[in-house]
Protein backbone atom coordinates (compact mmCIF):
# COMPACT_ATOMS: atom_id res chain seq x y z
CA UNK A 1 0.00 0.00 0.00
CA UNK A 2 2.70 2.45 0.98
CA UNK A 3 4.63 1.65 -2.16
CA UNK A 4 1.68 2.31 -4.44
CA UNK A 5 0.79 5.66 -2.84
CA UNK A 6 4.32 6.85 -2.36
CA UNK A 7 6.77 5.22 -4.79
CA UNK A 8 10.03 6.50 -3.26
CA UNK A 9 8.89 5.95 0.34
CA UNK A 10 11.59 3.38 1.06
CA UNK A 11 14.45 5.61 -0.03
CA UNK A 12 13.10 8.64 1.82
CA UNK A 13 12.55 6.53 4.92
CA UNK A 14 16.16 5.36 4.71
CA UNK A 15 17.27 8.98 4.63
CA UNK A 16 15.29 9.78 7.78
CA UNK A 17 16.70 6.67 9.47
CA UNK A 18 20.22 7.78 8.56
CA UNK A 19 19.42 11.21 10.02
CA UNK A 20 18.68 9.56 13.37
CA UNK A 21 14.92 8.92 13.31
CA UNK A 22 13.92 6.41 16.00
CA UNK A 23 13.23 2.87 14.86
CA UNK A 24 9.88 2.68 16.68
CA UNK A 25 8.85 5.97 15.04
CA UNK A 26 9.77 4.66 11.61
CA UNK A 27 7.73 1.53 12.32
CA UNK A 28 4.71 3.71 13.14
CA UNK A 29 5.34 5.75 9.97
CA UNK A 30 5.13 2.52 7.94
CA UNK A 31 1.60 1.96 9.23
CA UNK A 32 0.30 5.48 8.45
CA UNK A 33 -1.25 6.15 5.05
CA UNK A 34 0.00 9.25 3.21
CA UNK A 35 -1.79 12.52 4.01
CA UNK A 36 -3.60 11.04 7.02
CA UNK A 37 -4.99 13.11 9.90
CA UNK A 38 -3.07 12.07 13.00
CA UNK A 39 -3.42 12.83 16.71
CA UNK A 40 -0.36 11.98 18.83
CA UNK A 41 -1.31 11.70 22.49
CA UNK A 42 1.69 12.43 24.68
CA UNK A 43 3.68 13.69 21.72
CA UNK A 44 6.78 14.74 23.69
CA UNK A 45 9.04 17.07 21.74
CA UNK A 46 7.09 16.38 18.54
CA UNK A 47 9.72 14.28 16.76
CA UNK A 48 7.18 11.59 15.74
CA UNK A 49 4.66 14.18 14.50
CA UNK A 50 7.38 15.98 12.56
CA UNK A 51 8.50 12.66 11.03
CA UNK A 52 4.93 11.75 10.03
CA UNK A 53 4.49 15.21 8.50
CA UNK A 54 7.79 15.21 6.61
CA UNK A 55 7.82 11.54 5.58
CA UNK A 56 4.10 10.86 5.20
CA UNK A 57 2.59 14.29 4.57
CA UNK A 58 0.42 13.71 7.64
CA UNK A 59 -1.74 16.49 9.05
CA UNK A 60 -0.79 16.10 12.69
CA UNK A 61 -1.98 17.33 16.07
CA UNK A 62 -0.53 16.63 19.48
CA UNK A 63 -1.34 16.62 23.17
CA UNK A 64 1.53 17.02 25.62
CA UNK A 65 1.69 17.57 29.36
CA UNK A 66 5.06 19.27 29.60
CA UNK A 67 5.19 22.94 28.60
CA UNK A 68 8.84 22.90 27.53
CA UNK A 69 8.05 20.03 25.18
CA UNK A 70 5.07 22.02 23.85
CA UNK A 71 7.43 24.92 23.11
CA UNK A 72 9.71 22.55 21.18
CA UNK A 73 6.70 21.40 19.16
CA UNK A 74 5.73 25.01 18.40
CA UNK A 75 9.21 25.66 17.08
CA UNK A 76 8.79 22.65 14.76
CA UNK A 77 5.62 24.24 13.41
CA UNK A 78 3.38 21.58 14.96
CA UNK A 79 -0.09 22.12 16.43
CA UNK A 80 0.15 20.84 19.98
CA UNK A 81 -2.06 21.41 22.99
CA UNK A 82 -0.64 21.51 26.48
CA UNK A 83 -2.92 19.08 28.23
CA UNK A 84 -3.50 15.74 29.78
CA UNK A 85 -4.50 12.55 27.95
CA UNK A 86 -6.60 11.48 30.93
CA UNK A 87 -8.60 14.72 31.03
CA UNK A 88 -8.65 16.16 27.52
CA UNK A 89 -9.48 13.33 25.12
CA UNK A 90 -13.13 13.50 26.18
CA UNK A 91 -13.41 16.86 24.39
CA UNK A 92 -12.52 15.50 20.95
CA UNK A 93 -15.37 14.69 18.58
CA UNK A 94 -15.93 11.14 17.26
CA UNK A 95 -13.95 10.07 14.19
CA UNK A 96 -11.95 13.30 14.12
CA UNK A 97 -8.73 11.57 13.05
CA UNK A 98 -7.57 8.76 10.78
CA UNK A 99 -5.04 7.67 13.41
CA UNK A 100 -4.71 8.32 17.10
CA UNK A 101 -1.26 7.41 18.40
CA UNK A 102 -0.16 6.62 21.92
CA UNK A 103 3.59 6.22 21.58
CA UNK A 104 5.42 5.12 24.76
CA UNK A 105 2.80 6.93 26.81
CA UNK A 106 0.18 4.40 27.94
CA UNK A 107 2.20 3.52 31.04
CA UNK A 108 2.11 7.16 32.20
CA UNK A 109 -1.66 7.62 32.01
CA UNK A 110 -3.70 7.28 35.16
CA UNK A 111 -6.62 5.52 33.44
CA UNK A 112 -5.19 3.61 30.45
CA UNK A 113 -8.46 1.85 29.72
CA UNK A 114 -10.44 5.11 29.47
CA UNK A 115 -7.70 6.67 27.36
CA UNK A 116 -7.76 3.72 24.95
CA UNK A 117 -11.55 3.81 24.77
CA UNK A 118 -11.50 7.51 23.84
CA UNK A 119 -8.80 6.89 21.26
CA UNK A 120 -10.88 4.18 19.60
CA UNK A 121 -13.79 6.63 19.50
CA UNK A 122 -11.79 9.61 18.16
CA UNK A 123 -9.76 7.77 15.53
CA UNK A 124 -10.62 5.32 12.79
CA UNK A 125 -7.42 3.54 13.76
CA UNK A 126 -5.35 3.51 16.90
CA UNK A 127 -1.64 2.86 17.25
CA UNK A 128 -0.12 2.02 20.62
CA UNK A 129 3.53 1.38 21.33
CA UNK A 130 4.98 0.54 24.73
CA UNK A 131 7.90 -1.08 26.55
CA UNK A 132 6.93 -4.66 27.26
CA UNK A 133 7.10 -5.38 30.98
CA UNK A 134 7.05 -9.09 30.17
CA UNK A 135 10.45 -8.91 28.42
CA UNK A 136 12.95 -11.45 29.77
CA UNK A 137 15.33 -8.78 31.09
CA UNK A 138 12.59 -7.18 33.15
CA UNK A 139 11.57 -10.57 34.48
CA UNK A 140 15.17 -11.42 35.27
CA UNK A 141 15.62 -8.19 37.23
CA UNK A 142 12.63 -8.95 39.37
CA UNK A 143 13.36 -12.66 39.83
CA UNK A 144 17.10 -12.56 40.41
CA UNK A 145 17.64 -9.18 42.05
CA UNK A 146 14.28 -8.88 43.76
CA UNK A 147 14.20 -5.21 42.70
CA UNK A 148 11.90 -3.19 40.48
CA UNK A 149 13.57 -3.23 37.04
CA UNK A 150 15.70 -0.28 35.99
CA UNK A 151 16.99 -0.67 32.42
CA UNK A 152 18.10 1.52 29.56
CA UNK A 153 14.53 1.80 28.30
CA UNK A 154 12.96 1.95 31.77
CA UNK A 155 15.47 4.19 33.51
CA UNK A 156 13.42 5.32 36.52
CA UNK A 157 13.46 4.10 40.10
CA UNK A 158 10.11 2.97 41.47
CA UNK A 159 9.70 6.08 43.64
CA UNK A 160 10.22 8.74 40.97
CA UNK A 161 8.88 7.08 37.85
CA UNK A 162 6.16 8.82 35.81
CA UNK A 163 5.27 5.33 34.59
CA UNK A 164 2.52 4.14 36.85
CA UNK A 165 0.79 1.57 34.64
CA UNK A 166 3.31 -0.76 33.06
CA UNK A 167 1.89 -3.71 31.17
CA UNK A 168 3.09 -6.75 29.26
CA UNK A 169 2.15 -7.67 25.70
CA UNK A 170 -0.23 -10.30 27.12
CA UNK A 171 -1.85 -7.73 29.41
CA UNK A 172 -2.35 -5.33 26.54
CA UNK A 173 -3.84 -7.99 24.27
CA UNK A 174 -6.39 -8.92 26.93
CA UNK A 175 -7.31 -5.23 27.45
CA UNK A 176 -7.92 -4.96 23.68
CA UNK A 177 -10.18 -8.01 23.91
CA UNK A 178 -12.06 -6.48 26.80
CA UNK A 179 -12.61 -3.26 24.83
CA UNK A 180 -13.60 -5.19 21.73
CA UNK A 181 -10.78 -3.61 19.74
CA UNK A 182 -9.70 -5.44 16.58
CA UNK A 183 -6.01 -6.00 16.19
CA UNK A 184 -5.03 -5.17 12.63
CA UNK A 185 -1.32 -5.52 13.09
CA UNK A 186 1.09 -6.25 15.91
CA UNK A 187 4.86 -5.99 15.86
CA UNK A 188 7.29 -6.74 18.65
CA UNK A 189 10.89 -5.54 18.52
CA UNK A 190 13.64 -7.35 20.36
CA UNK A 191 16.51 -5.73 22.25
CA UNK A 192 18.26 -5.01 18.95
CA UNK A 193 15.18 -3.38 17.37
CA UNK A 194 14.59 -6.44 15.15
CA UNK A 195 11.02 -7.66 14.67
CA UNK A 196 10.21 -10.84 16.58
CA UNK A 197 9.21 -13.61 14.16
CA UNK A 198 5.48 -13.47 13.39
CA UNK A 199 5.14 -17.25 13.51
CA UNK A 200 6.11 -17.43 17.19
CA UNK A 201 3.31 -17.81 19.79
CA UNK A 202 2.19 -14.94 22.09
CA UNK A 203 4.19 -16.24 25.06
CA UNK A 204 7.36 -16.00 23.02
CA UNK A 205 6.51 -12.46 21.89
CA UNK A 206 5.92 -11.57 25.50
CA UNK A 207 9.32 -12.92 26.47
CA UNK A 208 11.41 -11.69 23.54
CA UNK A 209 9.72 -8.41 22.63
CA UNK A 210 11.33 -5.46 24.33
CA UNK A 211 8.76 -3.11 22.85
CA UNK A 212 5.52 -3.68 21.01
CA UNK A 213 3.50 -1.74 18.46
CA UNK A 214 -0.21 -2.44 17.90
CA UNK A 215 -2.50 -1.16 15.18
CA UNK A 216 -6.13 -1.37 16.31
CA UNK A 217 -9.60 -0.34 15.26
CA UNK A 218 -13.11 -0.54 16.61
CA UNK A 219 -14.84 -3.82 16.00
Amino acid at each position, binding site marked *: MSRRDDPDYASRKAAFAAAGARSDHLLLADMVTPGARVLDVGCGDGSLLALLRDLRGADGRGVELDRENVN*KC*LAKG*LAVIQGDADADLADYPDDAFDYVILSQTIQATSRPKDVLEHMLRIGSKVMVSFQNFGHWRVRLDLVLRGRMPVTENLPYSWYDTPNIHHCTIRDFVSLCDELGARMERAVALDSWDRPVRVSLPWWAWNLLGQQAVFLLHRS
Partner: protein
Amino acid sequence: MVDLAKLADEARAQADEPASLVMRFSADEQLAMDCGASLAPWQIAYQTYGELDADRRNAILICHALTGDQHVANPSPVTGKSGWWEFFVGPGKPIDTDRFFVICANVLGGCMGTTGPASTNPETGRPYGVDFPLVTIRDMVRAQAMLLDRLGVSDLLCVIGGSMGGMQVLQWAALYPERVFAAMPIAAAARHSAQNIAFHEVGRQAIMADPDWAGGRYLEQGSRPRKGLAVARMGAHVTYLSESTLHRKFGRKLQSREAPTFSFDADFQIESYLRHQGITFVERFDANSYLYLTRAMDYFDLAEEHGGILARAFRRTRTRYCVMSFTSDWLFPTPDSRAVVHALNAAGGAVSFVEIESDKGHDAFLLDEPDMFSAARGFIDAAARMRGVT
Protein backbone atom coordinates in the same frame (compact mmCIF):
# COMPACT_ATOMS: atom_id res chain seq x y z
CA MET B 1 7.57 64.74 39.54
CA VAL B 2 5.03 64.30 36.76
CA ASP B 3 3.39 67.50 35.60
CA LEU B 4 -0.19 66.22 35.55
CA ALA B 5 -1.69 69.30 33.85
CA LYS B 6 0.83 69.06 31.01
CA LEU B 7 0.18 65.34 30.72
CA ALA B 8 -3.56 65.96 30.43
CA ASP B 9 -3.07 68.61 27.72
CA GLU B 10 -0.84 66.29 25.72
CA ALA B 11 -3.28 63.41 26.08
CA ARG B 12 -6.15 65.65 25.00
CA ALA B 13 -4.24 66.75 21.91
CA GLN B 14 -3.76 63.12 20.80
CA ALA B 15 -7.48 62.59 20.16
CA ASP B 16 -7.60 64.64 16.96
CA GLU B 17 -3.93 65.18 16.07
CA PRO B 18 -1.97 62.19 17.37
CA ALA B 19 1.80 61.99 17.41
CA SER B 20 1.75 58.92 15.16
CA LEU B 21 0.77 57.92 11.65
CA VAL B 22 -2.89 58.57 10.82
CA MET B 23 -5.06 57.17 8.04
CA ARG B 24 -8.02 59.40 7.28
CA PHE B 25 -11.23 58.15 5.69
CA SER B 26 -13.46 60.68 3.97
CA ALA B 27 -17.20 61.26 4.24
CA ASP B 28 -17.88 58.67 1.52
CA GLU B 29 -15.69 55.97 3.11
CA GLN B 30 -18.04 55.01 5.88
CA LEU B 31 -17.31 52.54 8.61
CA ALA B 32 -20.48 50.47 9.09
CA MET B 33 -20.83 49.65 12.79
CA ASP B 34 -22.70 46.82 14.53
CA CYS B 35 -25.01 49.25 16.36
CA GLY B 36 -26.35 50.39 12.97
CA ALA B 37 -24.44 53.67 12.79
CA SER B 38 -22.15 54.62 9.92
CA LEU B 39 -19.11 56.54 10.93
CA ALA B 40 -17.76 59.09 8.44
CA PRO B 41 -15.44 60.82 8.18
CA TRP B 42 -13.21 58.91 10.54
CA GLN B 43 -9.54 58.25 11.17
CA ILE B 44 -7.30 55.56 12.55
CA ALA B 45 -3.98 56.29 14.25
CA TYR B 46 -1.26 53.67 13.96
CA GLN B 47 2.43 52.90 14.21
CA THR B 48 4.52 50.61 12.05
CA TYR B 49 7.91 49.02 12.67
CA GLY B 50 10.14 47.23 10.16
CA GLU B 51 9.65 46.97 6.41
CA LEU B 52 6.95 45.27 4.35
CA ASP B 53 8.79 42.81 2.10
CA ALA B 54 8.40 42.75 -1.68
CA ASP B 55 5.79 39.97 -1.77
CA ARG B 56 3.94 41.45 1.23
CA ARG B 57 3.96 38.28 3.29
CA ASN B 58 5.65 39.44 6.48
CA ALA B 59 3.02 41.70 8.05
CA ILE B 60 2.12 41.16 11.71
CA LEU B 61 -0.79 43.01 13.30
CA ILE B 62 -0.70 43.68 17.04
CA CYS B 63 -4.00 44.41 18.77
CA HIS B 64 -3.76 46.38 21.99
CA ALA B 65 -5.67 45.90 25.24
CA LEU B 66 -8.22 48.13 27.00
CA THR B 67 -5.91 50.95 28.07
CA GLY B 68 -3.12 50.30 25.54
CA ASP B 69 -2.38 52.23 22.40
CA GLN B 70 -0.52 52.07 19.09
CA HIS B 71 2.85 52.88 20.68
CA VAL B 72 3.96 49.26 21.06
CA ALA B 73 7.69 49.70 20.71
CA ASN B 74 8.38 53.41 20.95
CA PRO B 75 8.09 55.83 23.88
CA SER B 76 4.58 57.12 24.55
CA PRO B 77 4.21 60.67 23.25
CA VAL B 78 2.09 61.44 26.32
CA THR B 79 3.94 59.88 29.24
CA GLY B 80 7.39 59.41 27.70
CA LYS B 81 7.42 55.85 29.07
CA SER B 82 8.80 53.09 26.86
CA GLY B 83 6.49 51.19 24.51
CA TRP B 84 4.05 48.88 26.28
CA TRP B 85 5.36 45.71 24.60
CA GLU B 86 9.04 46.61 24.15
CA PHE B 87 10.07 43.32 25.78
CA PHE B 88 8.30 41.50 22.99
CA VAL B 89 8.56 43.67 19.87
CA GLY B 90 11.76 45.06 18.37
CA PRO B 91 14.96 44.11 16.57
CA GLY B 92 15.87 40.53 17.52
CA LYS B 93 12.83 40.23 19.83
CA PRO B 94 10.23 37.42 19.41
CA ILE B 95 8.29 39.77 17.14
CA ASP B 96 11.42 40.69 15.25
CA THR B 97 11.13 44.05 13.53
CA ASP B 98 14.26 43.23 11.51
CA ARG B 99 12.21 40.52 9.76
CA PHE B 100 8.58 41.49 10.11
CA PHE B 101 6.48 44.50 9.24
CA VAL B 102 4.62 45.21 12.47
CA ILE B 103 1.46 47.31 12.57
CA CYS B 104 -0.47 48.42 15.63
CA ALA B 105 -3.46 50.77 15.49
CA ASN B 106 -5.32 52.57 18.24
CA VAL B 107 -8.72 50.89 18.53
CA LEU B 108 -11.95 52.46 17.38
CA GLY B 109 -13.41 54.32 20.36
CA GLY B 110 -9.91 54.92 21.76
CA CYS B 111 -8.45 58.28 22.72
CA MET B 112 -5.03 58.20 21.06
CA GLY B 113 -5.99 59.42 17.61
CA THR B 114 -8.45 56.88 16.24
CA THR B 115 -11.97 58.29 16.13
CA GLY B 116 -13.66 57.92 19.50
CA PRO B 117 -15.72 59.85 22.04
CA ALA B 118 -12.92 62.38 22.65
CA SER B 119 -12.61 63.16 18.92
CA THR B 120 -14.24 66.22 17.42
CA ASN B 121 -17.61 65.47 15.87
CA PRO B 122 -17.42 67.10 12.41
CA GLU B 123 -21.15 67.81 12.51
CA THR B 124 -21.03 69.88 15.68
CA GLY B 125 -17.41 70.93 15.98
CA ARG B 126 -17.49 69.64 19.58
CA PRO B 127 -16.23 66.38 21.09
CA TYR B 128 -18.53 63.43 20.39
CA GLY B 129 -18.79 62.51 24.07
CA VAL B 130 -21.64 60.06 24.59
CA ASP B 131 -23.06 60.85 21.14
CA PHE B 132 -20.42 58.51 19.79
CA PRO B 133 -22.01 55.26 18.60
CA LEU B 134 -21.43 52.17 20.74
CA VAL B 135 -18.38 50.24 19.53
CA THR B 136 -17.92 46.46 19.31
CA ILE B 137 -14.80 44.32 19.00
CA ARG B 138 -15.95 43.53 15.47
CA ASP B 139 -16.11 47.25 14.65
CA MET B 140 -12.51 47.62 15.84
CA VAL B 141 -11.46 44.77 13.57
CA ARG B 142 -13.33 46.19 10.58
CA ALA B 143 -11.56 49.52 11.10
CA GLN B 144 -8.18 47.74 11.21
CA ALA B 145 -9.05 45.83 8.03
CA MET B 146 -9.81 49.11 6.24
CA LEU B 147 -6.44 50.45 7.39
CA LEU B 148 -4.68 47.35 6.05
CA ASP B 149 -6.48 47.73 2.71
CA ARG B 150 -5.11 51.23 2.46
CA LEU B 151 -1.63 50.07 3.39
CA GLY B 152 -1.78 47.41 0.66
CA VAL B 153 -1.54 44.58 3.20
CA SER B 154 -4.01 42.01 1.91
CA ASP B 155 -3.20 39.33 4.47
CA LEU B 156 -1.32 38.92 7.69
CA LEU B 157 1.41 36.49 8.68
CA CYS B 158 0.12 36.74 12.24
CA VAL B 159 -2.37 38.65 14.40
CA ILE B 160 -1.33 38.90 18.03
CA GLY B 161 -2.85 40.47 21.10
CA GLY B 162 -3.55 40.03 24.80
CA SER B 163 -6.78 40.52 26.75
CA MET B 164 -9.04 42.82 24.69
CA GLY B 165 -6.34 42.48 22.03
CA GLY B 166 -6.84 38.71 22.15
CA MET B 167 -10.55 39.20 21.58
CA GLN B 168 -9.69 41.15 18.44
CA VAL B 169 -7.37 38.35 17.34
CA LEU B 170 -10.20 35.80 17.61
CA GLN B 171 -12.57 38.17 15.84
CA TRP B 172 -10.03 38.67 13.05
CA ALA B 173 -9.73 34.91 12.51
CA ALA B 174 -13.51 34.49 12.49
CA LEU B 175 -14.33 37.52 10.34
CA TYR B 176 -11.47 37.46 7.83
CA PRO B 177 -10.19 33.85 7.89
CA GLU B 178 -8.55 34.16 4.49
CA ARG B 179 -6.52 37.16 5.63
CA VAL B 180 -5.01 35.53 8.74
CA PHE B 181 -2.25 32.92 8.34
CA ALA B 182 -1.55 32.60 12.06
CA ALA B 183 -3.21 33.93 15.19
CA MET B 184 -2.03 34.24 18.78
CA PRO B 185 -4.71 35.21 21.32
CA ILE B 186 -3.08 35.66 24.74
CA ALA B 187 -4.90 35.79 28.10
CA ALA B 188 -8.21 36.23 26.31
CA ALA B 189 -11.62 34.61 25.88
CA ALA B 190 -14.23 34.11 23.20
CA ARG B 191 -16.74 35.87 25.42
CA HIS B 192 -16.62 38.20 28.37
CA SER B 193 -17.65 36.47 31.60
CA ALA B 194 -20.38 37.67 33.96
CA GLN B 195 -17.72 38.38 36.57
CA ASN B 196 -15.79 40.57 34.15
CA ILE B 197 -18.92 42.44 33.06
CA ALA B 198 -19.60 43.02 36.75
CA PHE B 199 -16.16 44.53 37.34
CA HIS B 200 -16.56 46.76 34.29
CA GLU B 201 -19.96 47.92 35.45
CA VAL B 202 -18.56 48.96 38.83
CA GLY B 203 -15.92 51.00 37.03
CA ARG B 204 -18.42 52.66 34.72
CA GLN B 205 -20.73 53.53 37.59
CA ALA B 206 -17.82 55.16 39.42
CA ILE B 207 -17.14 57.35 36.38
CA MET B 208 -20.77 58.28 35.79
CA ALA B 209 -21.34 59.01 39.51
CA ASP B 210 -18.65 61.68 39.41
CA PRO B 211 -20.41 65.09 39.01
CA ASP B 212 -17.54 66.18 36.77
CA TRP B 213 -18.56 63.54 34.23
CA ALA B 214 -21.39 65.98 33.45
CA GLY B 215 -23.52 63.52 31.52
CA GLY B 216 -20.54 62.74 29.31
CA ARG B 217 -20.04 66.41 28.27
CA TYR B 218 -17.07 67.13 30.54
CA LEU B 219 -14.66 68.04 27.72
CA GLU B 220 -16.95 70.87 26.59
CA GLN B 221 -17.06 72.13 30.18
CA GLY B 222 -13.30 71.94 30.57
CA SER B 223 -13.55 69.41 33.40
CA ARG B 224 -12.77 65.71 33.80
CA PRO B 225 -14.28 63.01 36.04
CA ARG B 226 -10.91 62.45 37.68
CA LYS B 227 -12.17 60.85 40.87
CA GLY B 228 -14.58 58.51 39.13
CA LEU B 229 -12.05 57.37 36.52
CA ALA B 230 -9.36 56.93 39.19
CA VAL B 231 -11.65 54.68 41.23
CA ALA B 232 -12.52 52.71 38.09
CA ARG B 233 -8.82 52.24 37.36
CA MET B 234 -7.98 51.28 40.94
CA GLY B 235 -10.66 48.60 40.98
CA ALA B 236 -9.69 47.27 37.56
CA HIS B 237 -6.01 47.26 38.46
CA VAL B 238 -6.63 44.82 41.30
CA THR B 239 -8.22 42.41 38.81
CA TYR B 240 -5.05 42.53 36.68
CA LEU B 241 -2.87 41.29 39.56
CA SER B 242 -2.97 38.22 41.75
CA GLU B 243 -3.12 37.65 45.47
CA SER B 244 0.43 36.29 45.50
CA THR B 245 1.81 39.31 43.58
CA LEU B 246 0.08 41.71 45.95
CA HIS B 247 1.44 39.79 48.91
CA ARG B 248 4.96 39.68 47.51
CA LYS B 249 5.09 43.34 46.45
CA PHE B 250 3.20 44.96 49.30
CA GLY B 251 2.10 42.54 51.98
CA ARG B 252 0.79 44.61 54.90
CA LYS B 253 3.70 47.03 54.69
CA LEU B 254 3.01 50.62 55.74
CA GLN B 255 3.72 53.59 53.49
CA SER B 256 6.50 55.86 54.84
CA ARG B 257 5.32 55.56 58.42
CA GLU B 258 6.04 53.49 61.48
CA ALA B 259 2.49 52.90 62.66
CA PRO B 260 -1.07 53.25 61.38
CA THR B 261 -2.36 56.82 61.65
CA PHE B 262 -5.88 55.93 62.76
CA SER B 263 -7.24 57.79 59.75
CA PHE B 264 -8.25 57.07 56.16
CA ASP B 265 -4.89 58.14 54.79
CA ALA B 266 -3.06 55.68 52.57
CA ASP B 267 -1.40 53.91 55.51
CA PHE B 268 -0.70 50.76 53.54
CA GLN B 269 1.67 50.63 50.59
CA ILE B 270 -0.96 48.89 48.48
CA GLU B 271 -3.31 51.85 49.01
CA SER B 272 -0.66 54.33 48.04
CA TYR B 273 0.20 52.25 44.96
CA LEU B 274 -3.41 52.06 43.82
CA ARG B 275 -3.96 55.79 44.36
CA HIS B 276 -0.90 56.49 42.23
CA GLN B 277 -2.20 54.14 39.52
CA GLY B 278 -5.52 55.99 39.57
CA ILE B 279 -4.06 59.51 39.50
CA THR B 280 -1.63 58.92 36.63
CA PHE B 281 -4.23 57.06 34.57
CA VAL B 282 -6.86 59.82 34.59
CA GLU B 283 -4.55 62.31 32.95
CA ARG B 284 -3.62 60.07 30.04
CA PHE B 285 -6.93 58.33 29.36
CA ASP B 286 -10.33 59.68 28.36
CA ALA B 287 -13.12 58.63 30.73
CA ASN B 288 -15.68 58.23 27.95
CA SER B 289 -13.26 56.03 25.99
CA TYR B 290 -13.04 53.88 29.12
CA LEU B 291 -16.83 53.54 29.11
CA TYR B 292 -16.96 52.64 25.42
CA LEU B 293 -14.11 50.16 25.40
CA THR B 294 -15.23 48.29 28.53
CA ARG B 295 -18.67 48.06 26.90
CA ALA B 296 -17.16 46.65 23.71
CA MET B 297 -15.52 43.89 25.75
CA ASP B 298 -18.78 43.18 27.62
CA TYR B 299 -20.66 42.75 24.34
CA PHE B 300 -18.06 40.36 22.96
CA ASP B 301 -19.40 36.83 22.51
CA LEU B 302 -18.01 35.22 19.40
CA ALA B 303 -20.34 32.20 19.60
CA GLU B 304 -23.44 34.38 19.69
CA GLU B 305 -23.19 35.38 16.05
CA HIS B 306 -22.88 31.67 15.17
CA GLY B 307 -25.97 30.27 16.84
CA GLY B 308 -24.26 29.89 20.20
CA ILE B 309 -21.74 27.34 18.90
CA LEU B 310 -18.21 28.65 19.05
CA ALA B 311 -16.81 25.96 16.73
CA ARG B 312 -18.95 27.40 13.93
CA ALA B 313 -17.10 30.70 14.21
CA PHE B 314 -14.01 28.83 13.01
CA ARG B 315 -15.62 26.52 10.48
CA ARG B 316 -13.17 25.49 7.74
CA THR B 317 -10.50 27.65 9.32
CA ARG B 318 -7.04 27.31 7.78
CA THR B 319 -5.41 29.67 10.22
CA ARG B 320 -2.80 28.31 12.62
CA TYR B 321 -3.50 29.22 16.23
CA CYS B 322 -1.39 29.49 19.34
CA VAL B 323 -3.62 30.13 22.36
CA MET B 324 -1.88 31.19 25.58
CA SER B 325 -2.99 31.64 29.17
CA PHE B 326 -1.32 32.27 32.53
CA THR B 327 -1.77 30.09 35.61
CA SER B 328 -2.52 32.96 38.01
CA ASP B 329 -4.80 34.97 35.68
CA TRP B 330 -8.24 35.00 37.32
CA LEU B 331 -9.70 37.64 34.97
CA PHE B 332 -9.22 35.51 31.85
CA PRO B 333 -8.52 32.14 33.47
CA THR B 334 -7.15 29.10 31.64
CA PRO B 335 -10.62 27.50 31.17
CA ASP B 336 -11.58 30.49 28.98
CA SER B 337 -8.62 29.76 26.72
CA ARG B 338 -9.35 26.04 26.77
CA ALA B 339 -12.89 26.73 25.59
CA VAL B 340 -11.38 28.42 22.54
CA VAL B 341 -9.03 25.48 22.02
CA HIS B 342 -11.88 22.97 22.23
CA ALA B 343 -13.90 24.91 19.68
CA LEU B 344 -10.92 25.09 17.32
CA ASN B 345 -10.34 21.37 17.76
CA ALA B 346 -13.95 20.65 16.98
CA ALA B 347 -13.60 22.79 13.86
CA GLY B 348 -10.49 20.83 12.86
CA GLY B 349 -8.25 23.86 13.28
CA ALA B 350 -4.48 23.67 13.68
CA VAL B 351 -4.38 24.85 17.26
CA SER B 352 -1.66 24.88 19.86
CA PHE B 353 -2.17 25.80 23.48
CA VAL B 354 0.35 26.81 26.14
CA GLU B 355 -0.32 27.62 29.76
CA ILE B 356 2.48 29.79 31.12
CA GLU B 357 3.32 29.46 34.77
CA SER B 358 3.37 32.89 36.37
CA ASP B 359 2.16 34.38 39.64
CA LYS B 360 1.69 37.84 38.11
CA GLY B 361 -1.98 37.49 37.22
CA HIS B 362 -3.57 38.87 34.08
CA ASP B 363 -0.87 41.54 33.72
CA ALA B 364 1.69 38.80 33.01
CA PHE B 365 1.14 39.17 29.25
CA LEU B 366 2.58 42.70 29.41
CA LEU B 367 5.62 41.71 31.46
CA ASP B 368 8.98 40.08 30.88
CA GLU B 369 7.85 36.43 30.75
CA PRO B 370 10.61 34.34 29.10
CA ASP B 371 8.37 31.28 28.72
CA MET B 372 5.78 33.30 26.82
CA PHE B 373 8.52 34.78 24.62
CA SER B 374 10.06 31.42 23.74
CA ALA B 375 6.67 29.90 22.90
CA ALA B 376 5.77 32.93 20.78
CA ARG B 377 9.13 32.99 19.03
CA GLY B 378 8.86 29.30 18.09
CA PHE B 379 5.31 29.72 16.81
CA ILE B 380 5.98 32.89 14.81
CA ASP B 381 9.25 31.63 13.32
CA ALA B 382 7.59 28.37 12.25
CA ALA B 383 4.70 30.31 10.68
CA ALA B 384 7.20 32.53 8.85
CA ARG B 385 9.07 29.46 7.59
CA MET B 386 5.86 27.88 6.32
CA ARG B 387 5.02 31.08 4.50
CA GLY B 388 8.48 31.45 3.03
CA VAL B 389 9.36 34.60 4.96
CA THR B 390 13.11 34.83 5.49
